[in-house]
């Protein structure tokens, strides 16, 4: 009981509880990089709290100081002298040892689009471009149906029949195909951005857009301009997302 009144013990308990919540309370599991970040923040907060007044800080330091200098803690010091370097050594080994998988990498959220692109010899201005088929509301259903057919014929294998990036081939790719249901993908972007990505795919990315890995084919050789706009209509309408609009000029 006395142990849990100790500031040091309380700090340890908070850290352990935080770790358990972050490690086991989040499903699917949080990536190790995020877990480390969260734990670093919790550790900082705990240290700030225990040192935010002198009494608390003295109480927090008492067991540490005692372990380091008290004559009766000689055995504990000896154990720490062996265990702490071993733990650091183990950590260094796990970080340095070769693993049978590609190392984690930083990825950009969205590659930056060019101002204009060449589409089958025609220059298309991406900046400020809207989907021309949206003006044709009378034929919206027709465009949607055409877009759905194009999607099923060409895109479903990677992006999945639920448009969630879980197609048949998805598990063979790193990074996995985009999940259109995620509000952080197409809902964040103007339709012109999608037009560029579909038309040019991975091979057509400008060097400014790197680092970016993509196995997306360049669909400009297989789909017409209208077909690309149709499939874009399908992507937004089928997922219930709304395309980002351009901001008005100041």
């Amino acid at each position: 009981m006395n142990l849990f009144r100790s500031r040091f013990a309380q700090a340890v308990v908070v850290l352990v509880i935080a770790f358990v919540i972050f490690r086991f309370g989040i499903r699917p599991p949080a990536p190790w990089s995020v877990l480390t970040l969260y734990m670093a923040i919790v550790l900082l907060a705990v240290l700030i709290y225990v040192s935010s007044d002198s009494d608390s800080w003295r109480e927090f330091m008492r067991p540490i100081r005692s372990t380091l200098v008290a004559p009766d803690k000689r055995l504990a010091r000896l154990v720490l002298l062996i265990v702490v370097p071993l733990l650091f050594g183990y950590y260094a080994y796990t970080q340095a040892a070769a693993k049978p998988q590609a190392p984690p990498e930083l990825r950009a959220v969205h590659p930056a689009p060019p101002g204009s692109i060449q589409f089958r010899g025609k220059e298309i201005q991406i900046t400020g471009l809207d989907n021309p088929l949206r003006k044709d509301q009378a034929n919206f259903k027709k465009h949607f149906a055409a877009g759905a057919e194009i999607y099923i014929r060409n895109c479903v294998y990677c992006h999945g029949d639920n448009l969630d990036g879980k197609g048949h081939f998805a598990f063979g790719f790193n990074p996995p195909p985009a999940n259109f249901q995620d509000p952080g993908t197409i809902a964040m972007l103007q339709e012109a951005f999608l037009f560029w990505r579909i038309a040019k795919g991975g091979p057509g990315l400008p060097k400014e857009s790197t680092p970016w890995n993509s196995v997306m084919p360049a669909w400009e050789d297989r789909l017409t301009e209208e077909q690309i706009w149709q499939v874009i209509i399908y992507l937004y309408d089928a997922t219930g997302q709304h395309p980002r609009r351009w901001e008005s000029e100041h």
Partner: protein
Amino acid sequence: MVALLTLLSALPALAQDAAKEPAYRAFPLIGSRLAVWAIAQLHLNFAAFILGVPIFAVIIEIIGWRTGDAQYDWLSHEFVKLTFAAFSTTALLGALLLFLFIGYYPKFWTYMTSIFFPTYGVYAALFFAETFTVYIWYYGWDWLSGSRKWIHVSLGVLSNVFGTAILLVANSWVTFMISPAGVDESGALKGSVWAAINNFTWMPINIHRLIANIVFGGTIAAAYAAFRFLGAKTDEERARYDWMGYIGNFVALSAFIVLPFAGYYLGREIYAFNQTMGITMMGGFMSWLWIIQAILIGVLFMGSNYYLWLGMERIPGSERYRRYVPMLIGILAFGFMVWATPRSMVITLDEARAMGGTHHPVLGFLGVMSAKNTAVNMMILTTFLSFVLYRRANKVSTKPWVGTGMAIQWAALGLAAAVVIFFGVYGYFVESLVRIGFSVYQVLAVLGAIFVVMAIDIPMFKGARSTGAIRWGTIAPRSQYVLILLAVTFTWLMGLMGFARSGIRQHWHVYGIMRDNSVDAVTPAIGYAANMITVVTIAFFALVLFIFWLGGLGEKGRAEAHGHAAPVIAGGSDRRP
């Protein structure tokens, strides 16, 4: 004679070579880009300091003048002394930067001159005016005292007017490089230079830099005070510099609270000017800078609050507010976690498969602007609450309406928090453009709550019963290291964000107008840039330490600084803020 004839015959060839001036020259060893980058960043750091400090120095002088409290006058003089010491270094670095541009980027500089030549004269005139005004302000401190104090204060105000005008002129050059305006497709000026000055990002950067300069000036001045506190030999000295550190941090914190709003406005304007630039900055290869930025700003929030809580220890009566600390730190830590959560995470292939993509289905929601804006607004509200508790730590209101006043204050804070969270959550259910607009409501709610709370707090605690005087100089020494940490963190952050602002031009000197065809026409990786900024930050603090040391050296052997006694403020008056 032969040599002379040979030289004469070679003159036309030399003249021809001179006429074919190269577009670039290579700076020895480190290359031209690194040389310009380092000197530009150092110049900007010093310039931010000498432009930021006088803004609050003159306000403090006015407070001292109107209240007749000599301590404020002493403090204002201390701040201006720091500015004064850094003045010549700023000018030297500015001249060095100019030489580097002319020598190593002659074609670029010729182009910039073709656009901005009319502003050069204005800039030089302003610089002379600023310099001489600050000279008279500093050296005339005693001469223009007493009944002539108003003239002295006016000089302080005037130096700020000139300083701000210098900032606006220099900003027009740098913002033109990001968002050129007033030129035709070949880059030639179409009409008046005003169109080039008043470009898309000019005003957002003016606002952002002006506020950031105050924060920066405050943190550096507080770091100076911490430096003097830690080396103090007497209790009086310790008390004085404890107070100075508190004021420096208070100034920095006050301006820092509104800085994220100005930054958001700037980011939005960059996005509106050019989508490619905006996406490069926020979602493209620079997106990871924002995670580093979030971590640094999280450290600034945590550090500022920590300093306030440590400071409460020297205030009798503050014990009753300690119970709020766990709640405050909980909100700050949670906000920090949300803000630092990346949208696209660093993951192994196994982790990506377990998550079903690069975006985590739960944590991914914390990676978008709705969550970030909510987190930062909550952190601002929390920091403000810390300050309010600090402010009233040794005061007990005697007003009969204190209960009602407190209730309204808590209601205002609660309502602001509710508005911030509501729009944060609602932002997930609307389209991007609408969501961006929500940030305005969140900001207004927070600023509104700050206004309401202070409007009640000031009269409520006017003439309040004191629970004891603040024991200046008794703060835990670790608090002073926090002040130094805040200054270093903010300097590093400025460098990092400066890289983001400049790097989004990518391979353009002037975006879309003048291509960078030098050997350095590649945007450096974030790690490379971070290392570079670290080196510049270390160099800056080495120079600042030298200046601080010089400042102390000038006082050695003198009991009084600049002729009037430094006030004794140990156990000082609780009239101070």
